[in-house]
């Protein structure tokens, strides 16, 4: 067993895990953060995407021990500082950007990271930004709209 210390959504957490423990399983089953979902277990669908030191990564392709010391942001950490829905989460709600909600956490984390670098994307860029995540329910149209809406919320544009 290996001791791993992670700062998860701003809170330092220490867990004891076998070397082969996937980060996705560590977050979900050892730390109880079940918002991170596992869709394909081979890095294709993006549902398990979390931010490692701010960068989106597939937590199903990482061992927990390999990110010892990292800052991890999960969908639970994408809320606004006051505990209400964060801008991306709010945008998904307002634009009907989700149906079953299973893939949504991976989109929320991916888009959160993307908008930090690209605060004012075009529709085409928004579509490109979510191009690595699979959704089986929505047909993506309302997710594209959610990206644009989240950007507007972050810029403080009126609704």
């Amino acid at each position, binding site marked *: 067993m290996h001791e791993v210390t992670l700062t998860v959504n701003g809170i330092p957490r220490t867990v004891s895990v076998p070397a082969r423990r996937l980060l996705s399983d560590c977050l*979900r089953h050892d730390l109880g953060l*079940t918002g991170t979902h596992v869709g394909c277990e*081979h890095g294709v669908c993006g549902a398990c995407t979390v931010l490692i030191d701010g960068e989106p990564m597939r937590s199903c392709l990482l061992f927990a021990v390999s990110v010892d010391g990292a800052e991890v942001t999960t969908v639970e950490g994408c809320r606004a500082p006051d505990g209400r829905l964060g801008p991306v989460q709010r945008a998904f*709600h307002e634009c009907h950007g989700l149906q079953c*909600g299973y893939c949504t956490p991976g989109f929320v984390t991916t888009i959160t990271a993307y908008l930090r670098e690209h605060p004012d994307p075009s529709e085409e860029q928004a579509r490109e930004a979510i191009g690595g995540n699979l959704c089986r329910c929505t047909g993506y149209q309302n997710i594209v709209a959610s990206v644009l809406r989240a950007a507007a919320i972050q810029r403080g544009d009126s609704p």
Partner: protein
Amino acid sequence: MTTKMFGEPMLRREDPRLVSGDGRYLDDLGHDALAAAFVRSPYAHARIVDVDVTDALDVDGLVAIYTYEDLDGRVAERLPLLIPHPALHAPRTGYPLANGVVKHVGEAVAMVVATDRYVAEDVAERIRVSYEPLPVVVGIAAALSATHRVHDDIADNVAAHLVQEVGDARTAIASAPHRLRLDLDIERSASMPMEGKGVYARWDAADRSLRVYTSTQTSTSVRFALAAKLDLPVDRVEVVTPDVGGGFGVKIVHPWPEEVLVPWAAIRLDRPVKWAEDRREHFISSAHERAQHHTVEVGFDDEGRLRGLDVEFAHDNGAYTPYGIIVPVITSTQLLGPYKPGAYRVEFRSVYTNTVQVTPYRGAGRPQGVFAMERTMDAIAAYLKLDRALVRERNFIQPDEMPYDQGLIFQDGRPLIYDSGDYPAALEKVKKLIGWDGFAAYREQARAQGRRVGIGLACYVEGTGVGPYEGAFVRVETTGQVVVATGLTTQGQGHETVFAQVAAEELGVPVENVTVVTGDTRRFKYAVGTFASRAAVMSGNAVALAARKVRAKALRIAGEALEVDPRDLEITDGVVAVKGTPQAAIPLKTVAVLANPLRYAFDEETQRATQFAVGGSLDKPPVDDDDEPGLEATDYYSPLRSTFADGMHAAIVETDPETAEIRILRYAVVHDCGRLINPRIVEGQIHGGVAQGVGGALYERIVYDDDGQLVNASYMDFLMPYASEVPTIEIDHLETPSPLNPLGVKGAGEAGVIPGAAVLASAIEDAEGIRIDRMPISPSELWELRSSRRRDDP
């Protein structure tokens, strides 16, 4: 006036939970449970010679290993045949664990229970199974040739054979001025929800009760099936559906082997047990759909009007038929779409192969039927050199011919009678939306730039809201909160929102006050399930009926309290008041208090209902003979037959003259599902359906090799569309109410996917001038078609 809620594009009430990671899907539950894993067959057809567990026994954390020999009672029997049909003369279902023989790759041979999933898989890896391979049947042609058998006792590999005929189709075709024959293929695909299946069971030995959480489309039916399999009284079994990460049909099948084995093991071990399906397991051991080969013979007149239609097709049902022959039955009936076929004859054979079983995937046989019919329409138009839209229009059933009896038996065992629809209006709308009439000019413009474009059209009619019934429970709490429960499940359709809209509208309360529970047998015991675009129709109407009962009761009690005629009362924003005299009013929550005569108050408010506080007649008992305590009611909606939604899709594609890449430039949808409860949610359903239609037309195919190995069993190799593959979808609605149900609604869940293959084949054919008779089509296949045309016609 209470704000109108029915028909409003309300934001979803389930979203805040789901967008912030607070959803509770199956594998989010039961962290203390033991984990199950399965040893699955690597052979498509083989006899199991030996299962050797010697090496597995040393693994630290192993709890149990089970093979078929360990199963007892009815668990050792075959899984149920869910939907028997007179034409299904040779049904076969599997066992929870293979009984001596495996019939497809992925069939479960042994079950492992261990302290966690990693350990369970370590154990599974060390179990050595010896197999004696048997001859393998893959594909419709191999099945029909009957060189080898899938099941020893079925010599021709045919599970079912059905003929339906209206009029004398063959004579009508023979005597028609023109005749065509088409061979049309659709390949295998699959539902592929983002969340696989999963089961978590807790046995309470002291209470002798079982609670099962399962990612299903039908919790009530799982409950009955498990009670029967495990020989438990039904009242000792609770089945709860947590948040479900998509279903699209595959999760309506039940009980899955794992759905029986996990609770069985939990009882046997007296420990909670959980299994969450991994992606590879989902590919090789759940269910697929679509693969059919159709032969169409059609006779028509100079105007393109159908005289007769004769369709024969073969359906690949995989190794087992737990869901009966619903898929080919739907193809055979829904193929007719919005058209009058003249005489119609349809014949199908459903055949066994050594592949994963075939059960409904969104659309459920309709994409194939619509592909066959719409390809036929295009072929007639090409033959007569007529506009494709015009040929369709000439064959439409007209609005004044409704209700229209197609003379066939539908998938619910009831007559195929269309209840309403306005097909000419829908066609007008879609032509306008896509710019049908102006396309020729656009094509010329594109051609001048060296670009190749084409336009396509496809129409469908979809039987939705099949019975037998759904029910709902509605209660007004003494807090004024309204609780709604319905038995069918939810896997992304927004039922917490739409059923709240229906209840709020009927009761006259703010929608924020309504909470909806679905798919939990503790809350509602009788239900069928969420499939066949039926939830809004079935549970929507049941909620309306139950709410109407509650409303009537509330008005009666309020009338007594206010000493007015209930007919003079209305309910607005949760307050019952005399119409025109809002001062004479009583809040609904107080009515709820009064509805339950009390001996013991539990707070200040409920003191009003105690025996010395209530007034009323002393000649009547506190609860009258025909009354019940509580401001609540249960009611059921059971339709005479299905209600028929319809739609028309049009698409413009561009094909690359060099690479044969196929790009969708525009995609237009006109959709009629009767009255819309929530247009935002309906449009979301259409978007998702169209995306799956695009996948089915251009990308998704399940590929088996001749040995029965599923060669693309991963998301890397089975190509589902990403955002880059799905076009922007333009939608226009038509609302032709259904006369069959109180809300006038029709189903919308599957619609988007149905004409996908047909409309894109139509558009690609138009762009290329090459007959497209097989879908999906990849760029390399299109390139091959171009090459073979050049060879044939140099």
